[in-house]
Structure formats: C-alpha cells, structure tokens
C-alpha cells in the first residue's frame, strides 16, 4: 500500500504541500500521572485526535531530558480528519531515581515541506513519582503506629492504676 505507509509518506511529501487548510490536534487526558518503583515501569494511554480538516501526520515525543525514560508506541502515525489514535506511553524509571519528576509528552503535526508550515501541538504534562513506598506499605506503617500508640496508652493506664493502689 503506498500500502500502509508509502502513501502516508506520499501524502506528507506531495499532497500536504498543496493544501493550506486548517491543521488541528486534540489530546486526552490533559495530564499523565505515573507512580513507579525504581527500576519499574508503568503505561498510560494518550488519545490523539486529528481536529483539522485534512489528513495529517503526527509525532509524539517527550522532552529531551527524560527521553530515555519513555517508550511511546506508536510514536508516529497519520490520521484522517476526526480520526484518533491510541498511543501507549510507557515510563521506565531508572534505579536511584527517587522523587517527583515532571516533563511533557508532546504531540505535534506540522509539515516542513512548506515554505513556512504552520503546525499545531499539545504539551501534555507528565508527572512521574518514583517511590518504594507502595500504598500497602504506607497502610502497614500506619496500622503499626496505631497499634503501638494503643499499647502505650493501655500500659500507661495500667501503670497509673497500679500507682493509685
């Protein structure tokens, strides 16, 4: 098929330069949150929609600083007007990367074949929390603290009762 892809390329190199119609892009959700343990990974889905009025090619990428953390599939695709694509964003946190990290997943459509191509893009904030403190660990610590406090109060009452005798 200009099969699956050759035609898409042809669109990019031949057809798009001829059009000056509107280009558009939409993305959802508006933010991506990843909670990961060091060395672990998590995947979220980003929906990209062509809100323009002609077929367009889209690229999805992440800010350079965190490029090595992300895998995006697919990271390039063409969409007919109003068509949308599910993109899977996988973040793999390196070891010893504890803490909160913020970057952007960028979705853009543009055409550099034109004298000055006018493109549209969306910056989707991505928040990455790398922590060993899983929710159940936190809950366990909270329960342990509560038990310790309860035992302390019981013992104190007993001691107070003993002193009173």
């Amino acid at each position: 098929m200009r099969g699956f892809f050759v035609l898409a390329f042809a669109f990019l190199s031949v057809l798009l330069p001829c059009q000056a119609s509107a280009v558009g892009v939409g993305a959802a959700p508006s933010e991506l949150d990843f909670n990961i343990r060091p060395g672990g990974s998590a995947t979220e889905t980003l929906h990209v929609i062509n809100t323009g009025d002609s077929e367009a090619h889209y690229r999805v990428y992440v800010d350079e600083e965190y490029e090595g953390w992300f895998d995006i599939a697919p990271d390039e695709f063409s969409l007919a007007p109003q068509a949308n694509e599910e993109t899977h964003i996988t973040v793999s946190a390196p070891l010893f990367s504890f803490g909160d990290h913020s970057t952007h997943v960028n979705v853009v459509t543009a055409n550099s074949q034109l004298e000055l191509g006018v493109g549209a893009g969306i910056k989707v904030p991505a928040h990455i929390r790398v922590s060993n403190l899983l929710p159940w660990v936190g809950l366990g610590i909270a329960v342990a603290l509560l038990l310790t406090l309860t035992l302390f109060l019981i013992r104190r009452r007993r001691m107070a009762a003993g002193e009173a005798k």
Partner: protein
Amino acid sequence: MRSVSEGFGVLGNLLLVLALISAMILPMSVVAQPDYPLNPTDTEVANALDYLRGAQTADGDIGGFSASAWVTMAIAAAGEDPHDWRVGSNPSIVDYLAASAGSASSATDYARMILAIVAADEDPTSFGGKDFVELLKANYSGTQIGDASLLNDDFWGVMALISAGESPSSRVVANSVAFIKDNRNDDDGGWSWGVGQDSDVDDTAVAIMALIAAGESPSSSAITDGLAYIESTQMDNGGFESWGATNADTDSWAIDAIVAAGEDPTSGDWTENANTPVDDLLSFQQGNGQFYWQSSMPGAWPCQTTAYAIQALLGEPYPVKVLEPREGISVYVRVEGQDSTVWRGDVIVSESDIMADNSGTTYHLSDPTALGALDEASNHEERFPYYVTDQYGGLYVSSVNEEEPSGLNGWMYRVDYRSPGVGADQFILGETTPPNPPHQEVLWYYGEWTDLPLSLSVDKTQVDVDEEFSVVVRERSDDTHNWSPCEGAMVHGDQDYATGVDGTATISVDHDVTLHIFAEKDGYIRSDKVTVTVGEGTIQPPSSDEVYLTAHILPAISIEVSPGSVDFNDKLGPGDISDEHRITISNVGAWEVKVTTEVEEESDDLFLRGVRLDGKLWSSFQAIIGREESETTYASLHVPEDYSGVGPKTGNLIFWAEGA
C-alpha cells in the same frame, strides 16, 4: 619444426584469446552482484539484518508498532526465529507485538498483524488476547474487506486470511478477490490504493501478490497485465517510478510481485539500460546496512523500508508463511428465524457427529453436509441450540434457537437458494446436485415450503449524509430459477421503505450511521443484510428493545490552526519585511488553553530569526484562549540584514497548547 615466429603466432593467438576472455570476464566481476535471490548470509542481507538488530529497544520494538510487524516478517523470511530477537533477556519482538496487540484498530492493522503472527509461527486467532482473524473478518462487508472506497485493505486482507489458513474458496476471500479484479484499471492493467484512482506500482504489486496467494494463475491476464503495468514504469536505473523517481519501498514490492509471479527480477525481461530492479534497490543501501527510501532521504520509516528490502533481496514475497487451510468445505451459513436472523457467517465443514435428541443416538456423517454446516454454525450448539430428530427415518431439524415448528411452518434449508431434494444429512457440499457445486451458501430458515428467497442489493455501500442510494429487492422463482424485481417488499434501513414495481426503494439518511439493510415480505424468506455506511457511520440503529446512548466527548486540550501554511511569496531580500498573513488559533477542546509558539529548530535560520507575530519575534507570542474561542495573530517575515541564504526556504511554526 615450427619456427619461432610460428610459435609466437600460436602463443600470440592464445594470449589474444585469453585477453578477450579476460576483457569479457573482468568488467563483469567488477560489477558483479550476488546471485539472485540472495542468501541471508550475503553481506547485503546480513548487514540489513544487523541494522535492524541494532535498532531494537529493550521492550522488543524495532521501529515502532507497524514497523515491528514488517520486521518480524523479514526476520522469518531470512530463516531466523523472531522469538530470538531480543535485547539481552528483555522481551522479544514477538513479545512486543503481543503486548501492543491493542494498538491495532483497522482492517490493514489486523491484516499486517496476521501476516507477522503467522510468520512468527504464532496463532493469529489467539495472540496478545485477540483473535485477529475474527477482527479482520468483522471488517468484511459482504463484498469486500474494510473501506469500500479503498483497495489496499482488500489486497492485504486477502493475503492475511490466506496466510491464516482461510480457504481461497471461502466467501470472504472469493468475494474480495472478485472485488479486487473488478476494480482493476482496465486501461493500464494496474491497481490503485483506492477505487477509481490512477494505478501505481506499489498497489499493483500488492494486488498481484494477493491474487497469487489466493490461487490466481501467474499466466492469467490479471497477473500478466499487472506485471506489464509495472514494467511500463521501469526507469533507466532499473527501478520503478513512483512520484517521479524510484525508491526502495516501491522497488521492493515490485520485486516481490515479480518473484511471486515466478519471474526473475534480474532477468533480461526486467533489465533496463543494463540495470535491474535489484541493482536499483541495492543502490539505496547505506554503509550501516540500512536502506534509505531514496538516495539522499532516509524516509520516515527506515526499519520498515529495510525490512521490505530484505524480503525482496531474498526473493521472499508476501505472505511469508501460509497455514494449511482446515480440511473441509468452506460455505457461508445464514440462519433466518421467525423474526430475526439467528446467525450468519462462514464455516468450514468436514465430517460431523450429530446426535438425535429424541433417541440419544449419535450419527457420524463422514462427508461435509448441509446439516454439518448448521452444526458448525451453531458451534456444536454452544452458539445456539438446535434439535434433531430421527423418528421420521433420516435426520430432521425440528427446532433452531428454540423456535419450534407450528402448523405448516418449520425449519427448512436451501443450498445456493435452491431447495434440494434430499435431507440435510444427505446433501454433500461440493458434490450433491442440484445445485451444481461449488456450493457457496447454506440457508436455514423458518417458514413454509412455498416461501421463496429474497435478495437485496444496493448501488452504493458508502454514501454521504443526505446522499440518495438505491436498494433493489429481487425474488427467486423455484420454477425458472431466475431472480425478478419484488414489488411491495419492506426494506429495513434507518426506517422502513416499500419497494416499487421495479423492486427498488430509494433511501437517503440525514445523519451519520452504519445501516445493515435487509428486506422482508410475507411468503418470502428474509434477505441477507447489506451494510451501507452513511457519512462517518458507526452509530448502530437501535433495535426495538434497546436504547442507544451516544455522546460526543471533546478532548480536554485541542486546538485548530488555520491556515496550515504561510507562503511569504514576496521575493524578499535581506532587510525586507513581508506582508502580514492572518493566522487563527481556535480552541476546539473542552478546557481553556495557554498557547505559545515555537519555530522548530530544524527550520531555516531565516524563520528562526525572522518570523514576527503581531510585529514581535515569535517567541514573545502567548495567548489564553477559552473554550470555543479563537485568537488571531498576524505573521510577517523580517529577513535579517545579514541573512546570506538564497532560494526557497522551509520551516515550521508550531502553536503549542497546554492547559491554562
């Protein structure tokens, strides 16, 4: 005794002959290519495989979701196991495809996945939690696969189904092949990407591969004419013209088609100006093994282009592997109940074991029968129940889907619309006559003996909103076996329409919808359904007991920018300022957005330094735009006084949106 001069003469002649032979051999050895087809160990292929191996990421992916499927096929074509292609102990490329199975969403996606899955010796009916064969078949409209305005989804769909073991005689393959043939461009023998479009080499090559995979003889006119079209585009460098020049992708698929047709792409027939398509394809290979799309252009999908080239060099066209078709006869089964269709679809029938429910006796039918077809359609009663009795001698179907006989009404069957003279357990598909084999359809229906079949056809399967299309309903005579227009039939579409004296009803629909149109009439058997997509389609018509809920959800952040390009066609020089060009940014999402701009780094320095928005450098632009609101800015180009470039320049101005 010979004189010295005689001896020199003989020696001289010998040297002359040697010199002539050398003169013939040496230039050939200098330009010699490896014999075609190449082996996986040949440098060109080995280097290309190494390039792909080096492009693999930790999750197994090579070049992205789509490219990974093509690469998987190339790996298998090279005789390697794609399961072994992994970085260290990380997931293999096959694992990656399985994990990404959910990314496939179109007929061509499903087809590509099937081809890769089968090439990797995996099961296309159960891969990554999906049955890709079923998903692809769900895109079959009754006459073709996928979008009725496109052909490429039929080419790849046919190849994928054949690869998955579908019989070439199955309805979905046979009808799609007919659709492909019907949409060949008669003027040049080629095919295009879309119906009614001009021929091109890529699609003609894929069509040829699809037809040959489906059993078309390479000597048939469809194939020879297609090859003649491809040959007509051959350029002096040996490659095939696509958009004015040759490229690796087009060369690869054309070579594949030539090989699939049993020809040698390096033979004299495919040599132009002493160059073959293989010479041209190899000219795109780089030092690192990668194939560029064109000489100076890597192309958008380098791994994919390299994968295509590997298969072409190895002489391994698509499909790379083909599963053995299941033994048996492939037929379309339709089960029409009293008020609705119980089931319809393709089945493969071989031998069957049918239990008579009244006696508990199991009968083994060693041939593919019409009753066996019903058993397959019911998936051995897991899909819907049916009741068979042997109390009248042969096996008689008394109820299907718990619809019991009543009065003169009961369950009957027809093969290719004819009512056979033997019981369903006696009708051997592909053998019994009448009707003459091959048998295409077994119709089980609830009705009377006198009921006649209806057929329905449409003049368009894809129409715009408010565009008219015609439906023709015909009835079949059991006396003449001919079809004639049926007056007064009720056509069920978005609403009910009665056919006129010519059997025709005209329909137009004022909203996007996918219609499954069928016809009914008292005393007749309900027609099969035909799918018509109106506009964007997708919204299914509700049945009487369903309430459909629909909503159109806007993405949270979404913008539209118009126009999509600015042409400062002012013959500007250093120090000049262009006219202003209006650019409108519209917020078409649900949330308020903050919009900033960027001239991409790759743009010419002219734009990085010279683009002004509302008179200020582009980097100063910032706007907050509310929902359904727009912002206008005026772009101009200030050519820097020290700018030294000349000629056309390109760049990109991006309007970036994020939540305000």
